[in-house]
């Protein structure tokens, strides 16, 4: 009986998800599409929780739906047109439809076979057998920061690359002119709460759902809220410190990795006795970098004065080196 109820619940979740995805992709109004997309993200968070992936449910809610949604919403006004219309010819549309249907059938057939041919355990037993010497007891954190820590290191590099591009291309968006006392009042108690939650998620990630990415995104949410309520707050921020915060996650990660290579021959081979503390150190630095990166990405560009130091030295230097060069 219980199983049938679960099954009905599953079917409903799946149908709702597909319907949301379909409308997100086929609605004509961008604003509506973004809203539906955020709703789809929240539904996905529910589905992750249903499939016993609570770390992911948290991450999806904060990053997938939250930060992505905020980025998309704030970007809508950068574009003149709010319409989403496909310009493909009917023949082309037909071909695309046939192609995707054929691909769906092929992939379904393959997954069917794949689930049958697998032992159903895959890598989970290996993880379970080594979990006790990984330094943490949350297996997802163990995979992210120990077994496959190198992936996570490169992922931080991806985040840095993306945010550098954001900083290079644009000035940050103009501040809001309107200051809302209501928002300020809310911010005053919400921000400390978010910061504390972020610290808690970071700490608890070792043995329960949570970790650097969720914590970083939570911290970024606090910073974004602060910026919305007090638009001029970022002006007092030391920009050099900001650069340092951006890179510290990768820097600590690499230094720990190299140090462990010196001690134990292999890159990122933590000594089991220190593994827990090393992971916490790496995660703390990563949280700071992720929070800084996501906040800057939300601002949409470089803060005022980001490249100031350079321009001074540049004008001084270029007057000497550029003489006579044909451009």
């Amino acid at each position, binding site marked *: 009986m219980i199983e049938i109820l679960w099954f009905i619940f599953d079917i409903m979740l799946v149908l709702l998800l597909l319907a949301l995805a379909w409308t*997100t992709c086929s609605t004509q109004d961008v604003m509506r599409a973004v809203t539906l997309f955020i709703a789809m993200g929240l539904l996905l968070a529910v589905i992750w929780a249903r499939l016993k992936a609570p770390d992911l449910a948290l991450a999806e809610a904060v990053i997938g739906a939250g930060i992505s949604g905020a980025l998309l919403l704030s970007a809508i006004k950068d574009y003149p047109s709010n319409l989403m219309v496909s310009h493909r010819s009917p023949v082309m549309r037909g071909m695309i439809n046939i192609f995707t249907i054929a691909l769906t059938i092929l992939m379904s057939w393959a997954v069917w076979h794949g*689930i049958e041919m697998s032992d159903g355990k895959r890598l989970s037993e290996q993880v379970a057998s080594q979990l006790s010497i990984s330094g943490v007891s949350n297996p997802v954190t163990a995979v992210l920061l120990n077994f*496959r820590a190198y992936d996570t290191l490169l992922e931080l590099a991806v985040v840095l690359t993306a945010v550098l591009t954001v900083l290079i291309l644009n000035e940050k968006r103009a501040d809001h002119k309107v200051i809302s006392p209501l928002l300020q009042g809310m911010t005053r108690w919400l921000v400390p709460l978010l910061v504390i939650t972020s610290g808690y998620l970071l700490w608890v990630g070792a043995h329960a759902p949570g970790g650097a990415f969720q914590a970083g995104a939570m911290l970024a949410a606090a910073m974004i809220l602060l910026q919305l309520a007090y638009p001029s707050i970022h002006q007092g921020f030391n920009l050099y410190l900001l650069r340092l915060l951006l890179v510290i996650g990768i820097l600590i990660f690499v230094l720990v990795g190299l140090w462990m290579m010196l001690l134990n021959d292999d890159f990122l081979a933590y000594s089991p006795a220190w593994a827990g503390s090393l992971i916490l150190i790496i995660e703390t630095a990563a949280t700071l970098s992720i929070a800084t990166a996501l906040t800057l990405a939300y601002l949409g560009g470089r803060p005022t004065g980001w490249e100031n130091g350079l321009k001074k030295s540049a004008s001084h230097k270029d007057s000497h080196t550029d003489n006579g060069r044909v451009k």
Partner: protein
Amino acid sequence: MISEQLLYSLAGIGLFAIGLRATLLHHMLLPRLLALNVCGAGVFLIFIAIAYAGVENMADPVPQALVLTGIVVAVSATAMALALGRRLEALKDE
């Protein structure tokens, strides 16, 4: 357990296909970006569906970690695409 794995992985494939179709149909940046994100969510769902091991058991942690990485990569790419689009609009105005 198998039936849930199958149901959700098929849903993942469906999501992937919907996103793929819309990516191929649209030319403009924002719709394409949304479509690509839907497409990515589909792939993530396949991973998590096959990680599922029943209500009582712990799900396979490896796909969870992979998808977490994937989500962060997707957000980074989204941020970057939006920045490119914003700069292009600014240059069009000049």
